[in-house]
């Protein structure tokens, strides 16, 4: 396996698209339930937690790109190989692949659950997950450029949903937000960790990095993408807290969708159904990009054609859908992946960056990894 990937020029994508990838990968099913999840621990100061989670993410993105810039054009798998050698590196890569696949799995499952709870109560899980996964597979088969294209389209086509928040904004009760910072600081910090599952997605930089055209500018656009996500998440949380009373918010599973319930048009009374359908556009890039990154990893470890792995991975995810039947199981799995993601997306890249730096210092006269910094 090579440490650095040098894709053909035709496979590279414009640097500004990094912003869209980061935002599309971060905004997913998580945002629909985010305000409540954070509210459960951080109470009415939840928005502070969400904001700081965004700031923390900005720091981690910086560290990730700093690490990647130590190499010429490597991805996480290449770095694993470089640092840990053939076997341990492969093992770590496969563990990360497992995480990516499980993230893909809970994204599919959570979206299916939303559709079942709101629109089609008697639609079978396997039907909807099959459609979603086939769509994902179809996108990933097109390669990285198609996946990036999906991210771009998804952001452009769903950006108007953010403006729909103006309707609940009119019902905002400011007294819910006061007094600011009343919650114990420890709980606010706990709230930050609860945001993790919704805000992950930025770690995919570790995989798309070799395909960025101008790698020096990547940090700027990645930060832009994350800044928009942070802003959106903070506003959504703020509006939810003002809109719902305390007890309602702790009981409402998808506050964002419930807020859309008050929007009415003369010829369309139930706007939330439209919103849920559009939500698929938000979810699709998540599925695609996680699937792409995971199968890329399998290819890097075992070689051969990526196509085959895409089908295998999608079938495994689809097969797992049959094991989840009830909401509480879904909750458990989501919670698990949420905790794991805290480690894999936030802590692990930082640790790895430290190791990369130490290695670089130790082997100063060394080979390829001193080229750029």
């Amino acid at each position, binding site marked *: 396996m090579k440490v650095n990937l040098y894709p053909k020029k035709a496979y590279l994508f414009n640097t500004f698209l990094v912003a869209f990838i980061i935002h599309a990968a971060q905004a997913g099913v998580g945002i629909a339930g985010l305000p409540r999840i954070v509210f459960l621990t951080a109470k009415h100061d939840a928005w502070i937690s969400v904001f700081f989670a965004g700031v923390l993410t900005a720091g981690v993105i910086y560290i990730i790109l700093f690490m990647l810039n130590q190499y010429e054009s490597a991805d996480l798998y290449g770095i694993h190989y470089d640092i840990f050698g053939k076997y341990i590196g492969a093992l770590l890569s496969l563990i990360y692949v497992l995480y990516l696949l499980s993230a893909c799995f809970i994204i599919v499952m959570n979206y299916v659950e939303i559709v079942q*709870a*709101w*629109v*089609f*109560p*008697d*639609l*079978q899980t396997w*039907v909807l997950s*099959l*459609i979603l996964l*086939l*769509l994902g*597979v*179809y996108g990933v*088969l097109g390669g990285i450029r198609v996946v990036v294209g999906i991210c771009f389209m998804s952001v452009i086509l769903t950006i108007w949903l953010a403006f729909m928040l103006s309707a609940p904004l009119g*019902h905002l*009760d*400011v*007294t*819910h*937000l*006061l*007094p600011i910072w*009343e919650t114990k600081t420890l709980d606010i910090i706990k709230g930050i960790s609860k945001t993790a599952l919704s805000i992950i997605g930025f770690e995919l930089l570790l995989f798309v990095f070799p395909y960025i055209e101008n790698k020096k500018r990547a940090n700027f656009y990645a930060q832009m993408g994350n800044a928009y996500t942070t802003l959106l998440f903070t506003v959504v949380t703020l509006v939810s807290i003002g809109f*719902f*009373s*305390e*007890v*309602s918010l702790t009981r409402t599973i998808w506050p964002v969708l*419930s807020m859309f*319930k*008050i929007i*009415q048009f003369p010829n369309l*009374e*139930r706007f939330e159904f439209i919103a849920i359908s559009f939500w698929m556009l938000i979810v699709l890039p998540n599925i695609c990009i996680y699937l792409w990154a995971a199968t890329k990893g399998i290819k890097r470890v075992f070689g051969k054609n990526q196509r085959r792995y895409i089908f295998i991975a999608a079938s495994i995810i689809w097969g797992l859908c049959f094991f989840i039947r009830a909401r509480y199981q879904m909750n458990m799995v989501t919670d698990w992946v949420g905790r794991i993601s805290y480690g894999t997306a936030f802590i692990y890249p930082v640790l790895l960056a430290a190791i990369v730096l130490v290695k670089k210092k130790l082997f100063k006269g060394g080979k390829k990894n001193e080229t750029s910094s």
Partner: protein
Amino acid sequence: MKRVVNILTIIILLIPVTGCVEKNQLEQLGLITAVGFDYSDKKDVIKGTAVLQTFDPQMKNISNIISDEGKTSKGIRENENLKSNNKLVSGQLRVVVFGEEVAKDGTGRLVDTLNRDATIGNMLYISVAKGTAEDLLKKNKIEASQNLGTYLYQLIKQNVEEELVISPTLYEYNHSFYDEGKDPVIPILKLDAGDIVISGAGLFKDDQYIEELKLNKLFFLKVLIDQYKAGALELELPIDELKKFIKDDVSDKEKLILTVDNINSNRKIKLLDKEKPKFSVEVNLETRVLEISENVDLGNPEVVKILKKITEKEIKKEMSNLIAHFQNLGIDPVGFGNFYNSRVRGKNFKQEEWREMLKTAEFDIRINNKIVRTGVID
């Protein structure tokens, strides 16, 4: 080639998918537009009454009313479904009417199912019937060509828009019910010689209906709750100070009746003392004179000044009485508790404790009434 196969697979798979979802054809549906809940004679059994809208291409829109009993509201719907040739769906539910007794016992679990069901909207109206909901929905003489559900919805809606009643949407009900330190206010419907009229506002303690507030007192509550733009207020004022300005002989009269129209209002609540607690309430009104019972020269600045003073005094008296009444009942429709909660740090705010605190709370009320216009004549 492979790509073509992939696309074909997806298309072929989409065909059976369309069969997976339940079909709903409009002609075969009975849209429930209003429901009423009462207690049945049997123990623990609820009686539900549903107003249906059905569509038949041959006939005009028909609305009919079915009622049945069950232990849960969804159970009632199943039972009602057995009585109808159409499949009953609740996606178009507009108005929920609780019978007086059900409302007094607590609406909690019936509202819970409204919230749980994703097909039910958030902007439907909640109301309380004087007597039973069944009588209200069945014994009125509103023409059958009009759908009763939509009729009730319009009845409440236009009065909400005119700001004569407080908006009772499910969302607003939830908001004030679930908020610690605020109680809902819901309109009361009653039958008056075959017509359905809004008779007053029902004051709630949590989810229990406590007492009816007359509509002429509702003004004072509404001004306290939110910004107010329309709506008239009839005041009975002492006449003494104005006597010398009245041209006719009024020596035998004690009261002056004045109707003002509220153009604009805002209120400021401040927490003066956290321990006691003590609030200051400042209400600024901008009003316009609509009708006055005596012939007074409103062109005279002095008259307007006196009028301003005595209306302020009267409004203040009414408002203090109202708040004192709320304190006696231990309810908080204005949401002082909510306000208190947002101003005091580091306490564990509980609704029950607040009710005790509210009883001893003090209110310092100040009214500023600005008479901006007197109509087209002086």
